[in-house]
């Protein structure tokens, strides 16, 4: 226990300072939420590999350091060209630097039909935004079970706030960009806790692209939480690209809740960070809801990335299709844990899960664990996973058509990524991700 306290105490102390200063003007509900969350964080402490959910991922590199809460970005701000480079297109974007909204780097959202897209900090200052935040923040994220989500909730201050009112269609994808400068303070490296809320109301349609990127090779930690709510009959897509810096740490959770007959596409591409852990918690909470979950992780060097997904079929007649591929080079380590829960009464559930891992070196490693928990009898659930090197028959087939072994290997490796990218429907976003993947594999 002393161990846990040693590591959590500095964050509790930081929280007290944060609560006195920057967060003192918050409404009571938010103060209570934060206080509850820091208390929960202190109880839980940083997870260890003895815990089932963390058996393949050692967070000691994070827990053993003392990360300082990031301040509002100090000049110079990143160059506009650095931000544009990370964006999919010239559409509206909301940009955050070290977790804080950067208005001069952002462009205004399409203000049709009462759509709001901007910073959560600003939304909390308004009556309507505050109401919406109060209704959703912390309600979907399972911070009671996760020390990292609890810590994020304790320091909840800023992030993206997207609200698409009922029956409104967002024509262009909205881009949310979180950049980290990687600049340390004199006392140590920094942590930011970006917190986003995306609410797509009944019958609305929207696509959001979330990008997390490092602008330097400095040491920093991003501890992000995003909550997504998709209303009845709504259609939403969330793309998430993680390109954090090579010496950074990223822990993140994406929580979604879908209502009746809604569609949600969650697409995850993980390229960056020395150590990354991404938890996806998706709840299909109304009959007829559909979830498409695509993930791709491309790792090299000594990178470690762990994806834990939980798909909760809480209602009947829902469908979830999950495809995750990993390409692991050099000494990298990929972890995939996919849990599917079919609640009692969630009849006619149609669920498919696949995780394929390509090992490009003998030192690369992949751990793949499907977990099905089915409490209903009239369901269709399939899962499969593979871990292995490049297939020799595929290699020979390509060579028999005149391709050199190196070219054949590179085509097969790219194919592993392209298989996932092809499931991402938005053409502009897909092209951008395709470029990223090609650059990465080149």
């Amino acid at each position: 226990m002393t161990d846990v306290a040693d590591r959590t105490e500095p964050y509790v102390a930081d929280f007290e300072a944060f609560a006195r200063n920057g967060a003192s003007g918050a409404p009571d509900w938010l103060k209570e939420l934060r206080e509850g969350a820091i208390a929960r964080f202190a109880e839980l402490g940083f997870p260890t590999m003895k815990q089932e959910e963390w058996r393949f991922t050692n967070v000691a590199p994070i827990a053993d350091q003392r990360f300082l809460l990031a301040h509002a970005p100090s000049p110079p701000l990143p160059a506009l060209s650095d931000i544009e480079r990370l964006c999919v297109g010239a559409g509206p974007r909301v940009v955050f630097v070290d977790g804080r909204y950067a208005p001069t780097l952002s462009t205004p959202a399409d203000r049709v039909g009462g759509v709001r897209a901007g910073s959560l900090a600003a939304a909390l200052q308004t009556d309507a935004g505050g109401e919406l935040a109060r209704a959703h923040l912390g309600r979907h994220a399972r911070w009671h079970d996760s020390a990292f989500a609890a810590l994020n909730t304790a320091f909840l201050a800023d992030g993206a706030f997207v609200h698409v009112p009922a029956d409104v269609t967002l024509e262009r994808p909205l881009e949310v960009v979180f950049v980290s400068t990687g600049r340390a303070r004199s006392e140590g490296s920094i942590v930011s806790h970006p917190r986003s809320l995306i609410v797509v109301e009944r019958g609305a349609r929207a696509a959001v692209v979330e990008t997390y990127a490092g602008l330097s090779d400095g040491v920093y930690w991003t501890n992000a939480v995003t909550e997504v709510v998709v209303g009845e009959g709504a259609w939403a897509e969330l793309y998430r690209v993680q390109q954090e810096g090579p010496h950074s740490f990223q822990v993140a959770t994406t929580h979604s809740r879908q209502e009746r007959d809604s569609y949600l596409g969650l697409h995850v591409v993980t390229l960056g960070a020395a150590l990354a852990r991404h938890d996806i918690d998706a709840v299909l909470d109304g009959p007829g809801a559909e979830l498409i979950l695509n993930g791709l992780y491309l790792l090299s060097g000594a990178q470690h990335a762990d994806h834990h997904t939980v798909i909760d079929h809480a209602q009947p007649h829902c469908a979830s299709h999950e495809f995750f591929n990993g390409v692991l080079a050099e000494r990298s380590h990929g972890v995939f844990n996919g849990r599917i829960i079919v609640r009692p009464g969630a009849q006619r559930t149609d669920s498919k899960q696949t995780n394929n891992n390509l090992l490009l070196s003998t030192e690369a490693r992949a751990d793949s664990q499907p977990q099905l928990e089915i409490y209903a009898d009239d369901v269709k659930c399939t899962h499969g996973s593979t871990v292995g090197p490049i297939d020799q028959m595929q290699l020979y087939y390509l060579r028999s058509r005149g391709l050199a072994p190196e070219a054949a290997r590179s085509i097969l490796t790219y194919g592993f990524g392209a298989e996932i990218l092809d499931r991402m429907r938005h053409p502009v976003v897909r092209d951008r991700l395709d470029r990223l993947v090609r650059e990465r594999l080149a």
Partner: protein
Amino acid sequence: MTGKGKRETGNVLLEVRNLHATVEGREILRGIDLTVRAGEVHAIMGPNGSGKSTLAQVLAGHPAYTVTAGRVLYEGNDLLGMTPEARAREGVFLAFQYPVAIRGITNAYFLRSAVNAIRKHRGEEQLGPVEFMDALDEKLKAIGWDSSYLSRPVNEGFSGGEKKRNEILQLAVLDPKLAILDETDSGLDIDALKTVAQTVDKLRRPDNATVLVTHYDRILTHIEPDVVHVLAGGRIVKSGGKELARELEEKGYDWLREEAVVT
């Protein structure tokens, strides 16, 4: 169809002498002799397990097979010393019995990569996506396909017949000097079989040759062979004209097995 004259005059494209090969320590080929001249179509028939596919794969360079004796000359050069990709670039093509699926790679990209690898070897200019599609159009039509097949991943989710057609499309696009078709006719319905046969027949020229490896004589009613060989027990036990195929269909292979043991 073209008769003996051509067989006498065409240059020797492939010369196989006393070829022995093993897979996982088992000897499958036990002394194959075969000469294929430009302009010829050869049919290699034989019962299951006689070594037909092994011969096809050894000629293409499958890494699982070990040649233990004999030699193979292709245009006078040592074929067995060449990598699979070098063979392909020099004009050897194998239509696989079991074509391999490749996830994430579209048929169009795959075909263009193969064409460009061969063009590069010949010192020809690389084809861009648009030029390539233009060049492909007619060949697609010939096998009864529309361009939707090009945007699908290579053989992924293809039916057996679609995979075979895809091999024939590759054959048409790569235009090899020596085409080896390994059981391309098996598992095809009659329409697909005709399409395959017509495409192969259309590609016949005085400067190229085709080796049809087949279990049945069905395809030979559409593509007339110059020579028919019977493979049994890892050796060619009988060679003859197209009438041999008919004889095999009527009498089966058993009489040849006995003959092979006797000789």
